């Protein structure tokens, strides 16, 4: 079983990397980009039967820093 964990900065947390990407997009002439936020995607290959709460535990204890980041788990049942 596979799962994906999306880690994003909380609203209101300044994202210097997102800002730099935004500037670079502007520099390339892409107009109409209002904002850019950069995050992380972590793919987990898990033993069958790993519960949602196990994955949440992994996120809280290591994968995300919940002081500044949110996480969202997506299970890929047939992967």
């Amino acid at each position, binding site marked *: 079983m596979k799962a994906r964990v999306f880690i994003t900065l909380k609203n209101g*947390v*300044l994202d210097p*990397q997102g800002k*730099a990407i935004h500037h670079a997009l502007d520099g390339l002439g892409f107009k109409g980009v209002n904002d850019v936020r950069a995050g992380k995607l972590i793919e987990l290959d898990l033993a069958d039967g790993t519960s949602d709460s196990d994955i949440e535990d992994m996120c809280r204890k*290591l994968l995300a*820093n919940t*002081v*500044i980041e949110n996480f969202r788990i997506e299970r890929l049942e047939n992967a």
Partner: protein
Amino acid sequence: MRSAVIVFPGSNCDRDLAVALEQVTGRKPAMVWHKENALPDGVDFIGVPGGFSYGDYLRSGAMAARSPVMRAVKEAAGRGVPVIGICNGFQVLTEAGLLPGALMRNARLSFVCRPVPLRVENSQSLFTSAYENGEKISLPVAHHDGNYQADDATLDRLEGEGRVAFRYLDEVNGSARNIAGILNDSGNVLGLMPHPERVIEPAHGGTDGLRLFEGLLETVAA
């Protein structure tokens, strides 16, 4: 004073910290590898050094904060043993939950490596007793992820409880309220981005860092 310096894969200021501690205490610190489950008996000071532990993978300090030795460091900190985290060590202590907030990428994205002027905001702590309150000192910084952030309630609490130990006099990395170093609620854990261990003799260009270790020795030995 019997001190210990924690060593992670990727630490690179561990020896500088050991030299500073030996110079001040007259005793070589125990160098404790991250895989150890316990600290040597009788350790009464712990240093978590700068560097790039685990290559800064995931987040700076994230892996190191979960290594076996950090359980022993947390337990010792809980008993009141003084712990200092310098640069990457500060990042490790926030990731380990020993200090509030987080250290993010510098606001202007650049690696900052230069001496910076600081103000000692609280000279009553274990670590700052050799400084005057409000004294202006200079310590070098060398970091990419030194942008200290916490929510407003946490920042207000740090300020109100005298837990901001050092503040940048100029904008350095985007840190909230120009915070350079903070104390935990019992005052025995200090995290700071600048490197006191790099300015302990005149040949280093200054000795403002030396007094941190001297003050610490005086308070721990007292």
